């Protein structure tokens, strides 16, 4: 599916589509490896799987230009990767090493910000990324720079006042902001039916005067298409967009959580909609790629991740003498 031209061909070149597939596969491979490391007791603290969210993080992130800014969250591993944050740095962060993105200061994907890559690091209070991205967008407006800010939040965050406040403020200022709401059905153990009385979170955007739409969050073409339209709208002065990407959190809230509270048939239903398998089928059907090529991509990703694991595990721990460094900017 392609929202820019629903009847026409995919606006992406074959090479771009293969890149998207690579980022999705790398995301899945790294995510799977993180889970296995933690299960082997080689992890540190808690961690979060993004399984099932590859289409959203990669599809939306791929719609941004290099000068655009993004504030992803803990299910958006793919977005960090395609912006240039390497598996080695990300894993070293997860293992608390001095070579990690945040030099042992913050856990798992939290605080993996790097302004050289135009990535803003998040705090656990997830909707906090929304006004921060809005502020970045307002800074671009102020300086009349043709840049866009994008952020990601979940269904849980959409219940907060901050979510509504930020959309309202973004609409008032017609800010170049794209908000991706990853509706993955659960906030920790609480199903969406116990969080809100409405069916679609996109209504909340509409209510605040923000152009809002709903997409299939497991269809990377749909995500990329909608995100591209939203980014172009933002860049051309058309104001903010909210995209509700419906998906499913395929594992627990965090690594410790078996998610026994999720009905098995719900998981089964969404397993059949796996975003990576679906995209591979699309690429096969369109003659863009084939199983041999997929095998080669998988092998490449596996090797990259293996090398990242070695790097992270062999990296030095932070020097305890540095604990008080960096509280303040010089």
């Amino acid at each position, binding site marked *: 599916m392609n929202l820019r031209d629903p009847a026409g061909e995919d606006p992406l070149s074959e090479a771009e589509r293969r890149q998207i597939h690579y980022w999705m596969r790398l995301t899945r491979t790294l995510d799977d490896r993180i889970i296995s490391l933690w299960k082997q007791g080689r992890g540190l603290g808690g961690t979060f799987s993004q399984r099932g969210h590859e289409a959203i993080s990669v599809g939306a992130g791929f719609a941004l230009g290099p000068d655009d800014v993004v504030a992803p969250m803990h299910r958006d591993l793919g977005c960090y990767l395609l912006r240039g944050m390497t598996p080695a740095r990300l894993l070293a962060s997860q293992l608390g090493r001095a070579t990690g993105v945040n030099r042992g200061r913050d856990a798992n994907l939290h605080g993996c910000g790097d302004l050289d890559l135009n990535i*803003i690091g998040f705090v656990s209070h997830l909707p906090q990324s929304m006004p921060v991205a809005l502020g*970045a967008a307002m800074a671009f407006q102020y300086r009349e720079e043709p840049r866009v800010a994008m952020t990601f939040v979940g269904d849980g965050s959409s219940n907060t006042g901050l979510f509504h406040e930020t959309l309202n403020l973004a609409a008032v200022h017609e800010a170049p902001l794209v908000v991706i709401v990853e509706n993955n059905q659960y906030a920790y153990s609480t199903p969406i039916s116990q969080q809100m009385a409405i069916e679609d979170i996109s209504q909340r955007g509409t209510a605040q005067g923000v152009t809002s739409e709903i997409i299939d969050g497991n269809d990377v073409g749909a995500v990329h298409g909608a995100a591209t339209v939203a980014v172009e709208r933002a860049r051309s002065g058309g104001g903010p967009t909210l995209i509700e990407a419906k998906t499913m959190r395929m594992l627990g809230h965090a690594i410790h959580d078996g998610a026994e509270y999720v009905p098995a048939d719900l998981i089964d239903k969404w397993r059949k909609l796996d975003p990576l398998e679906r995209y591979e089928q699309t690429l096969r059907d369109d003659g863009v790629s084939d199983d041999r090529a997929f095998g080669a991509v998988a092998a490449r990703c596996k090797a990259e991740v293996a090398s990242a694991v070695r790097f992270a595990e062999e990296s030095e721990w932070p020097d305890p003498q540095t604990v008080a460094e960096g509280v303040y900017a010089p």
Partner: protein
Amino acid sequence: MTDGNFGFADQPASTGHQKTYIEAISDGLATEMANDPNVLVLGEDVGGSFGGAFNVTKGLAERFGDRRVLNMPMTELSFIGAANGMALMGLRPVIEVQFADFISTGFDSIVQFAATTHYRWGGSVPWVIRAPSDGGIRSGPFHSQNPEAWFVHTPGLKVVAPSTPADAKGLLISAIRDNNPVIYFESKPLYRSLKGPVPEGEHSVPLGMAAVTRQGTDATVISYGAMVHQALAAAGTLAGEGIDVEVVDLRTLKPLDTATVLESVAKTGRSLVVHAANRLAGIGAEIAAVIAEEAFESLDAPVMRIGGLDTPVPFSPPLEDVYRPDQHGIAEAVRRICSY
């Protein structure tokens, strides 16, 4: 609070024009907006011809344009959060929270995001929150608060609290230039009651440096904001009784200039900390602990503290007057420590 210049009459007036404390804040803002196009102002009612609940930003929109003075809806959490994003992108927003009491609405954006970002991943968040604080002006529980201790307790923030017009300007300019989030507590009771010399144009006062506002030998009174003037008034009274009081104005509450405090206490051997914020777990508790730890050998009397009561700030004058420290209570406490 009485009119007058609170013991500053002996300061040279030649260093600048006489300005009220609130005029000095406006002057600092305008000076830095003229200096740096990255400085912009945002907050409730700050824009247009209105210029804020206290008129601090009056004239700024006309002078610098509406794009640099942004009215915000009544949503501190999101507009302070937006300032976080602006600051990460290299702007230097100055946020007005109308009353310091309303800063709690923006708490997460301050203490969770702004305060932790540089430590966690190196992002610099150079904003200033101007928080009109303090009571004694019959404004009740929600327009009188002094919530500075919350922020002094938060790693990654800086906190300033000027007591003079010159410092109001100079500390504001330094706060705007600082590459970290700074909360600037301006004292409402001083706004129009206090006038003093303020240097024209370029004028900055470094963060983290206390000032010895009155030299003395018998006891040190350590304070900040409006209470500095109560301490000076008490010192004037006590001078007539043969007690020579030194007054230290902290000016910056974080980072705290403990060196100046300890130097003074080493000289006088007696110390009293005074603030309008409630005493329990306030700044005074920290300073008293530092003095006890670092200056024990110099002490001739226990370190004393005076602060607001551990109640919400009451409205009615007989209640607020009991709640709030004043020069008489300060003088009495100094007499006590001097009797050891």
